């Protein structure tokens, strides 16, 4: 799905937990997520802590979308 969005001309960032899979399928902008059962946030930190983690990741995803890349790039 990531590749088809890219092919349609829309810049896309893949926020995912298992980065090697994302690299294999061919995503170009990749932001590693927190965990498989909770990619954006960390419920173990409570609601507020989890929201902060999520906000940070979303901002990182937006930064990735605003960064020129010439190939597959993982935004650690």
């Amino acid at each position: 799905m990531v590749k088809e969005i890219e092919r349609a001309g829309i810049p896309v960032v893949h926020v995912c937990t298992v980065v090697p899979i994302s690299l294999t399928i061919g995503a170009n902008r990749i932001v590693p997520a927190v965990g498989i059962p909770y990619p954006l946030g960390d419920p173990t930190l409570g609601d507020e802590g989890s929201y902060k983690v999520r906000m940070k990741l979303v901002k990182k995803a937006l930064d990735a979308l605003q960064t020129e890349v010439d190939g597959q790039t993982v935004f650690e």
Partner: protein
Amino acid sequence: MEKKRIVHYINNFFAGIGGEEKADIPPEVREGVVGPGLALQTALGDEYEVAATVICGDSYFGEHMDEATETLLAMIKEYDPAGFVAGPAFNAGRYGVACGSIAKAVEQELGIPVVTGMFTENPGADMYKKDVHIILTKDSAADMRKSMPKMAALLKKMMSGEEILGPAEEGYIERGIRVNYFAEERGSARGVEMLVRKMAKEPFETEYPMPVFDRVAPNPAVKDMKHAKVAVVTSGGIVPVGNPDRIESSSATKYGVYSIEGKDTMSPEEFMTIHGGYDRAFVLNNPNLVVPLDALRQLEKEGEIGELNNYFIATTGTGTSIGNAKGFGEQFSKKLVADGVDAVILTST
């Protein structure tokens, strides 16, 4: 004569420890066979002994790949095995990645023959087919009865130093390795014969298959995020409560388009996940963990993004065929373009 020792790797599910709620268990080792190890032992015969089974949760492995591989390697080494088998993982993605990763590490570090098994679309197959022998299986565990004997047969051949034939003969996924051999006819004769067949529209087999690379060049970066329209797409199976489109919990054949107009957060009363490939407890409690509506709405209010698209698109990623996923992407991308979306955040569990 002493039996040759084999170590077998399986995940939490095949070990009978539990499903997704147990996918976060760290590596552990048990003496003898566990679960599908019985079929492995039967297929290997009396001269071999499945001495130990190493087990790890799929999520744990996915989240701690290096560390888990190292721990498992140490556990495997203890048994001084003559061969190693992982899986088969069929179409289970994280399990396939784990099998490939451990098999590769065992081959490299311990220098013993290794075999694993997967369905061709398992992401682990593409990642590790160049490194290890992966027996081609069907997409579900119903194929265990047929795949395990193939894995055992190949491992036995490797351990006895017999010549390993090509992918078609042995049943493994093509590794891209060329082997010299003497053909009966010279190249020009074979070429002409192939051309004649091609012109007659008869089937022919190329001697030089090209690797398939489906890569898309990255689009230019978003120049003006403060005026950009951002949309969310997810493979995490988020749907309105009740799943009105009846999207499958695995092997999805459809996707859904769901409004978030006027909403500030993904309320668990309105949205749920139907994804069958991870422990849903956290996300059922707070769907913002997959569709980060609360954070994006805040950034929209602060003016960091121009506008949040008033719907998100969702399907289930687990077990879904590449063909279906590609079809969904082609279809909904047209809608996203028509609706003036400038950038997409795609989240995966």
